[in-house]
């Protein structure tokens, strides 16, 4: 009887507005954090955070706020995480909530999905997303499709996270970008944080979101420091999905990008400004599913040129998708064909110089943008 009333979906909508089971002794500001974070942060309260610290804080806060949240994965507990993202969490939350698994991705991912179906909110860490390929069936078939297959009866609130994409010197099997793979699956949400604020706000939103969410982090960003606004340092800070962020405003060219390529694009934009006086707008997608088409269209209306920058394989990739969307929704505003920079179509080679030819970098972005702008 109650199933016919779709209690699951109801529960779900209420839990969006009010993260469940907050500690009664904590008080929260009523204004949604996202409003506060947009540009109003006082410079004084800004602190430097590494992406690693931001992720760690997000996990700690969500573990603190909601007893249904737990984290499992290889080396997450006693070893403090292969990349130290889960440092200190075992000590603080105990081995009921922070769980070392055997090296059995398909198994522990499936188990986490089951726990999510039963109402818990697992954070399933993959040491890297390369190893999630062992478990992709559970992510796609068991997690992403169940809500739909059940006619909305059965939600699956789970977060899959770990480093994704290019990592240096580790060759073909350990250096691949899966954004396009997960981004193509209806039923999944997929976020791709770049900065520390992105990392914290998106991971927290992922854990609270009632759907399966993939958080595609990047190992090379873990140690990078970014300013974190005062609002973002609070435990109610979340970043809504499907809203891109204009990291740098401009009028001559729109670069749409994600994850590590955001930083590279900003460097290129700065160089283009210095050398040629052109203003490049850099859009950080933050989430690729949902994807903020509106922000792209708006920007193209202004700049009339678009360059997508990503580091996955070119064929059937994120860049291809961005170009297709631009064709579909912004064709009339373009002064030139939209273009893409991607990873090269090659399994990642080990040797440094070959590896360098396989992924975008600042100079390549600068030069290609220059060419597009006929500078």
């Amino acid at each position, binding site marked *: 009887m109650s199933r016919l009333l779709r209690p699951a979906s109801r529960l779900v909508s209420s839990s969006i507005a009010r993260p469940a089971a907050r500690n009664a002794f904590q008080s929260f500001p009523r204004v949604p954090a996202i409003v506060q974070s947009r540009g109003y942060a006082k410079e004084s309260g800004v602190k430097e955070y590494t992406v690693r610290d931001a992720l760690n804080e997000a996990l700690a806060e969500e573990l603190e706020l909601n007893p249904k949240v737990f984290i499992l994965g290889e080396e997450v507990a006693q070893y403090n995480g292969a990349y130290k993202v889960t440092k200190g969490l075992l000590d603080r939350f105990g081995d009921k909530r922070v769980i070392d698994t055997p090296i059995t991705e398909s198994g522990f991912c499936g188990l986490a999905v089951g726990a999510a179906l039963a109402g818990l909110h697992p954070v399933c860490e993959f040491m890297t997303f390369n190893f999630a390929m062992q478990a992709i069936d559970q992510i796609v078939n068991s997690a992403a499709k169940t809500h739909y297959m059940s006619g909305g009866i059965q939600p699956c609130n789970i977060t899959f996270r770990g480093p994704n994409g290019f990592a240096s010197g580790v*060759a073909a099997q350990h250096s691949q970008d899966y954004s396009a793979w997960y981004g193509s699956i209806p039923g999944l949400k997929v976020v791709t944080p770049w900065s520390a604020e992105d990392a914290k706000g998106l991971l927290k939103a992922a854990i609270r979101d009632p759907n399966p969410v993939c958080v595609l982090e990047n190992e090379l960003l873990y140690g990078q420091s970014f300013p974190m606004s005062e609002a973002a340092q609070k435990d109610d800070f979340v970043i809504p999905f499907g809203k891109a962020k204009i990291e740098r405003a401009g009028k001559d060219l729109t670069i749409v990008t994600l994850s590590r390529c955001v930083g590279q694009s900003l460097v290129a934009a700065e160089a283009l400004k210095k050398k040629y006086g052109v203003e490049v707008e850099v859009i950080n997608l933050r989430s690729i599913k949902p994807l903020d088409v509106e922000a792209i269209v708006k920007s193209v209306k202004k700049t009339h040129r678009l360059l997508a920058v990503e580091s996955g394989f070119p064929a059937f990739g994120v860049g291809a998708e961005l170009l297709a969307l631009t064709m579909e929704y912004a064709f009339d505003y373009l002064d030139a064909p939209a273009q893409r920079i991607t990873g090269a179509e090659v399994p990642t080679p080990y040797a440094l110089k070959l590896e360098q030819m396989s992924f975008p970098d600042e100079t390549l972005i600068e030069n290609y943008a220059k060419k597009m702008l006929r500078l």
Partner: protein
Amino acid sequence: MLSRTLRTSRAAPLRVLSRGGYGVTKRAVTTDAASAHADKDAVPEEDDKPFQVHLSDESFETYELDPPPYTMETTKKELKQMYYDMVSVRRMEMAADRLYKEKKIRGFCHLSTGQEAVAVGIEHSLTKEDDIITAYRCHGFALMRGGTVKSIIGELLGRREGIAYGKGGSMHMFAKGFYGGNGIVGAQVPVGAGLAFAHQYNGNKNTTVALYGDGASNQGQVFEAFNMAKLWNLPILFGCENNKYGMGTAANRSSALTDYYKRGQYIPGLKVNGMDVLAVKAAVAYGKAHTVAGLGPLVLEYVTYRYGGHSMSDPGTTYRTREEIQRMRSTQDPIAGLKQKLLEWNVTTEEELKGIDQEARKAVDGEVAEAEKMEFPEATGKVLYEDIYVRGSEPQFMRGRTPDENYYY
């Protein structure tokens, strides 16, 4: 000296298998690297004249299987070669250690220091027509399978003349009868079953040794491979290199049953002292005969120890005590163990042994120096895009990062 865990199990009375029909293995397996015996007076003058060595009764434990004979034949020449091989592997890993610290090796670098007897013992019981497949801790196997020190170190350095032409790095190396060098934990095990399938299909009298770690042993596909191998009677020796840890996780924290040799359930198992190169050789020779006779797969467990961290970036001391590492290094070392035996049995003299040591070191060091002089691959599209497909069968072009970087074959 026994390690702490082994000490307790040894305290148990003589172990008798409860299920009937199989011979009795005498004792719990130890990691004593110098436990074999030979009658010194029976050791012949001639280098290649066979004589008998008696393995300790703590060399094997079995599961649903008669133990291998505790007596094996060997020659002075073979023993010295085994010694030379283990010294070479260690010297090469030491060079890798140094080069990594000098920042000349990128990414991951997993060393097998402490585990040399496994790679060397296995090789000495196989022919080049048999197959080996393993994970990323592969340098020693690559060397034993016929890769040169120069090409292996060259690969670690990302050079054009590396064993994989600089494309693979530390984790990926291949040679005749050696199928890598694989980076995804556990994935090599069913692939190994496929190699065995091909031997059976082609009617070869050969075996496949498929190695994986104590951590990897829990991957589902390992059990999938077990099932097919038994179902189809494949000539394969599954081999768990139990070095007690998978990264920072001790075996008993990852595995519900740490008797890895019993985990084939319906496949007979054999646990081997993996610090004693002679025991390893005897076990694999016995296993090969078993599979070649059409008796189906075996699950071997090589009890060993990794001296260093999981990879070069892991100090390896946060999840185990320094004392434990020190005890293994100083009392169970496979090279020191064999050395002691060679001297005890008059197989060689202190003098000759020093010569062998020096020769091995000199050879390795020389090749390492040569590797350091090798060229890096040229940063061209031709080099980057070669070998994605079999030559001559490539698509018209591969896309670069931008269309103007496209490479046309």
